[in-house]
């Protein structure tokens, strides 16, 4: 056993670092570092830079323009990109939708959709959750009724992240209302500009417009937008959720956020000394740092075993739970560091090019919004409660009843 990178992995890391140094625009990394709000154009710019280098589709096979990287390479890239304050790669098209199309789509669908993801022609969003179907995703009620060569879609999706940036949405829809819950669901791709699709913004508790409701009223969708078989969509959704684990534990993001937190509390003071030297704060900081160091290794162990064996749902669930907990704890410590200055609510200060005088320390404006926004981590993508159910049945093999 050893945790050292091999010479070839070290070389790869240096390559990644050199790329980031040369190609990541300072304007973007400054915004990410300072937790400013990114625009659609910001994400597109970064996607396009990655695509030029051939590094956008880290989990696709090389024949479709993917990197063909090992999980360790993907992990190295994730950590280095986060450390350099690169914008996140928005996952909905390049990792989520593409994973399902690559595995279950027809050749024609691959040719039709995959290149447009890479070159930025399509921005995909996800239509899974519904107002009545959150943790109980299979309880969804949006229907798609076959009518000649089309489906007619009616219903409502919610929590659609970046729906206002997207021109395409992949949805779970109910195609057999008589079947048992999980068995009547299909996986359908829909153009957002089809008549009858309506998008309404949801403002989050931190004041940000990030997610949306999407309404479907008699929306006519060509049947060749169906991915895989009719009524088999639940299988594809499960595949999608378990498929992409490199990022589940949020190691890159948390590592970068922890470094930022440490810089903050080295200058923030209490009783004339750095807050980082207050014994109780230092202990809480250390606990998170240790938990993250442990999780980094847990993540690698699980990634490597997934490389050589079937991906385990329970491993993903463990990484999701602890990864989101650690990430949230870091945002909470930043909020605490800001103390009374977490209260002023200055959305303008989170925009690029804000020139006003900061209120309190410069990190303070983002502290509370960032903390509040990250409460979503333990709720979405299968709440942590649902993840514990998965662990109990899949790993611990505890009886249902």
């Amino acid at each position, binding site marked *: 056993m050893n945790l050292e990178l091999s010479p070839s992995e070290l070389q790869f890391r240096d390559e990644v670092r050199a790329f980031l140094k040369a190609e990541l625009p300072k304007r973007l990394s400054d915004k990410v570092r300072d937790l400013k709000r990114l625009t659609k154009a910001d994400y597109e710019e970064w996607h396009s830079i990655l695509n030029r280098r051939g590094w956008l589709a880290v989990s696709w096979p090389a024949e479709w323009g993917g990197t063909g990287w090992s999980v360790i390479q993907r992990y190295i890239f994730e950590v280095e990109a986060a450390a350099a304050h690169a914008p996140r790669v928005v996952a909905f098209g390049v990792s989520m939708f593409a994973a399902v199309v690559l595995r279950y789509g027809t050749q024609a669908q691959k040719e039709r959709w995959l290149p447009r993801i890479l070159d930025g022609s399509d921005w995909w969003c996800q239509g899974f*959750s519904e107002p*009545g*179907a*959150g*943790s*109980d995703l299979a*309880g969804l009620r949006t229907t798609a009724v076959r009518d000649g060569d089309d489906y007619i879609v009616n219903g409502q999706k*919610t*929590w659609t992240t970046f729906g206002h940036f997207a021109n395409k949405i992949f949805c779970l829809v109910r195609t057999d209302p008589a079947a048992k819950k999980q068995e009547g669901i299909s996986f359908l791709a829909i153009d957002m500009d089809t008549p009858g699709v309506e998008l309404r913004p*949801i*403002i*989050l*508790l931190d*004041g940000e417009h990030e997610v949306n409701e999407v309404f479907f009223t008699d929306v006519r969708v060509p049947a060749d937008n169906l991915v895989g078989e009719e009524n088999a969509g639940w299988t594809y959704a499960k595949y999608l959720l378990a498929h992409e684990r490199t990022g589940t534990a949020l190691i890159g993001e948390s590592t970068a956020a922890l470094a930022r937190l440490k810089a903050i509390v080295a200058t*923030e*003071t*209490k*009783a004339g000394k750095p*807050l980082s030297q*207050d*014994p*109780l*704060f230092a202990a*809480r900081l250390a606990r998170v740092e240790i938990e993250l160091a442990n999780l980094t290794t847990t993540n690698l162990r699980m990634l490597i075993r997934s490389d050589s064996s079937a991906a385990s749902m329970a491993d993903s669930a463990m990484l999701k739970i602890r990864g989101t907990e650690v990430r949230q704890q870091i945002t*909470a410590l930043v*909020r*605490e560091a*800001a*103390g*009374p*200055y*977490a*209260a*002023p*609510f*200055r959305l303008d200060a989170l925009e690029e090019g804000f020139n006003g*005088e900061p*209120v*309190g*320390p410069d990190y303070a404006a983002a502290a*509370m*919004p960032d*903390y*509040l926004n990250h*409460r*979503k981590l*333990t*709720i*979405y993508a299968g*709440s*942590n*409660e649902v993840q*514990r159910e998965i662990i109990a049945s899949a790993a611990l093999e505890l009886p249902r009843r």
Partner: protein
Amino acid sequence: MNFDLSEEQRLLADSLGGYLGKRYDRDAGDRTHWSALAELGVIGAFFDPTRGGFGGSAFDVAVVFEQIGRAVAIEPFLGTLMAGTAMGDDVPEALVTGTELFAFAHQEAALRHDPDTVLTTAVPDGAGWRLTGHKGPVRGIEQADHIVVTSIGPTGLASFLVDPASEGVSIRGYPMIDGGRGGELVLDNTPARLVGPKDGASAIARTLMIGTVALCWEAVGIMDHLRDATLDYMRIRTQFGRAIGSFQVLQHRMADLAIDIEQARSAAINAAAAIDAGRRDAARVVSAAKYTIGTTGTRVAEESIQIHGGIAMTWEFPSSLHAKRLIQIGQEHGDADHHLARFVALAAA
């Protein structure tokens, strides 16, 4: 030993709760609600009869702030309480009647984690004084007709009254995450009048103590609201074909949370009782309460968001301000770490 409210306290709680629940509009933006609340006796409850009020005990304050918490009302209750307490016998009638608004500027911009320390200086200037310093965030500073500012003068800490229109006063306002507005107050050789008891430092210590107890009771009111709102939601929200409140795991978490909330109320009772009984360890008991409120409050807010799920992530979520306010209370007037360390330090003393 007696855990009952007095008849007057119960009446005040009822009428205040009724007003805030039914007639109060946090976005009114003028002084109509403040006048109405003053008439209900909210401000009078903060002060004893020698100062124009009819209350003045810590439990009188508690009764008011518990109701404020339930409604997350944003009127200048805390600034009024603290400004008035700091002024002692000098408290003006216009404060007690609610006809003029007061802010209490103590927290310093540069001392975010030292709630008891002040750098602002006061130098004598003829019959008056001149203040220089930077206070922030100060709640209700833009609306205030008068500001009570804590400063270090030649004889130590004391309270000073500042007219916001005076020379050398600059105020920069902003909205607050938990509702209402606050601002930065910069004083540059600003004229001021010394107010309050001769021993300014003890008066300010008492003021901070009663202000902290008020925050604790505000938090108690918020926690009760969040518990009840979460339980209500658990009874109606269904997932997997059943009410989420029937899931054992959420039941047990809410059971533990309910115990924590009972304990937080007890902590707030202990603090108010210690002040009213003039106990020598009152400061330590107040720190115990603020520590308890800080840790439990954050847990209550986070659990109520988690159990509500996605809906709690939205701006529209009816309890959103409760959750934000509760979290922020945890890190004002010293956070849980601060008060735990203070509790330890005061034991040695």
